[in-house]
Each structure stands twice: as structure tokens, then as C-alpha cells.
């Protein structure tokens, strides 16, 4: 089964009755919003990385941080814990 990013779309096609039916889904498929970093405000402290429960936030080569689209569940802890308000949650469709 091919993995798509929209959970609800797949929910229509399959029934999660069989054992292991949820396997093709990634943790991020149920997400409502994705965090976005404002690079002008970010001081690259790494608090968002520390407090991410799913280990979805990773460090890019230039020292800033980004969220893995497949892993992020959109809980918003990074948005809440950022001291400088550099993270905003951008809602998805």
C-alpha cells in the first residue's frame, strides 16, 4: 500500500479492523499543523530539539532546526517552549 500524507483520505479506503492495518501510515499523517522556524528570530539554542517527544526536529547544516514532515505530529510543544517566539504553527489542509 502506498503511503500518502493525508490520513483521512486513506481512512476512507481501508478499514482498520485487521491486525497491523495501520502499518502503512507514518506518525505525521494525522497532523493538523506543522511548525515553521523564523530564522531572523532563532538563536539556534536547540530547545525545540530537546523537547520534541518524537525526535522529529533535526539540525540542518547551517545550524538552524527543521521538523521532519513524516515524523512531526504537530503537538506544538516546540512552539510553546521557544523563548523567542520564532516557531509558528502553520495549519495544513
Amino acid at each position, binding site marked *: 500500500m502506498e503511503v500518502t500524507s493525508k490520513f483521512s483520505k486513506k481512512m476512507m479506503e481501508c478499514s482498520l479492523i485487521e491486525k497491523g492495518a495501520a502499518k502503512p501510515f*507514518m506518525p505525521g499523517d494525522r497532523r493538523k499543523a506543522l511548525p515553521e522556524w523564523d530564522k531572523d528570530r532563532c538563536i539556534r539554542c536547540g530547545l525545540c*530539539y530537546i523537547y520534541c*517527544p518524537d525526535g522529529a526536529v533535526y539540525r540542518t547544516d547551517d545550524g538552524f532546526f527543521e521538523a521532519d514532515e513524516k515524523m512531526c*505530529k504537530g*503537538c506544538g510543544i516546540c512552539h510553546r517552549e521557544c523563548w523567542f517566539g520564532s516557531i509558528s504553527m502553520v495549519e495544513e489542509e
Partner: protein
Amino acid sequence: MDKFSLYVPNFLPCKEYFDPKKNNACPGCGIALAVRHTYKAVEKLIEKAVWETPSGGELFGSKTDVSLLKIKQGKTEVIICLDNEAGGSLQDAIKKQMPAIAAAEGFKYVATASPSYPFDLYDKMKKALETEGKSYIHILCPCPVGWQFEPETTVKVGRWAVESRAFSLYEVGSGFYNQTVKTLKPRQLSDYIKAQERFSEVTDEQLAEASTAVEKEYSKLLENIQPE
């Protein structure tokens, strides 16, 4: 480069042992955050670790619904209790008996930890792994679904539990008894209780009773702590 060269995470190794694909935790899960930092401390030993639920639903004589992570290596045995207070009442939320009983039962190292203080949790885990004999770590993991609060406030609620003295962070070993996070200016207990929707029916009288009980527990703890 094994460690981050940044301000905040340069105390932690950057290698992740926790695989988020293999869990189905809710968004903002406190247990997932605690387990992630536990795995960072335990490193390769995690392959030998065993997940358990306490036999008969009882741990140290008190009924609980917690999950245990047991790690054994040679003489070292670490029991990690991930407590999310499933079905807990107000009395359970403000009084934790299990660490005290564990300390009395002859565990070599007993500590309480919270995922809101990750470096504290990491240090305690490392200490437990270095201690010969049994050790016990009790982690209070806020649960957005069970406690009914917004998932983005998980870390904040965990921090308020410590700041309001409802869940003190301390460690007991052979020859030392330390409070690792000091709460000199405590937060109101009502802040912590009212942040959780599950306690929305708690009356002011019950809150007053609870806060006196918390103060009593805290003064008991202070008696045990050695002056520096």
C-alpha cells in the same frame, strides 16, 4: 563530532536510539519524551531492556497502572517506572508513595524525574546505570489525553508539577539525599490542578486540603535532605 556545539543541547549526545516509527503515541506524549531521553542515556544497552507491567497491578503494595522498563547488566539492575497517573484521583496526584517505599526497601539508588527537566533525567539515568545493585527511577509523565489538557502544554504542566511542590525531584543513594531541583518560590497548587481538565470538579475546600498535604510532604522531604 559526538556532541552538539550549541548552547542548550551540548550536554547531550546527538545520537537517537528512540525510533518514533515504532510507537503510536499521541501528539504531545509525555511518556514518549521521557523514553526518548532515557534511551539517550541507556544507549546500546536498550536492546536488552524489557517492558513490563507490574504483576497483579501492584507495585510496592500500592495499586497502579504504570509501565515499567527493566534494564539488567551484570550487577546493575534499573527499574524505570513511567507513571502517567492513569485513573488517578487528586490524592494520587499530590502524593507519590512508591519512591519512598523503594528507598525503604533497600534499593541502592532511588530518584524521581520529570521529562520537563531532561538534563536532570539524563544525569539520574546515568547515575543509576553506574550504581551496583538495584535502582529505581520514578518518572512523572504528563498525559494530554488522560489529564485532559492541550498537547502543546505537556512540558509546561510537567514543570508546574515540580514548581508547585506536588512532585518533588530528589535522589536517594548510599550516603546522600539531594533535592535536585529546588523550589524556593513555589507556584500555587491550584495552577497545576486547574491546568488539568480532569480535576475541573475539584472544589476549593479540596484544593485547600490538598495544598496543606503537599506542604506536609514537602517539609518531610526537607527533614531528610542534608544541609549543604
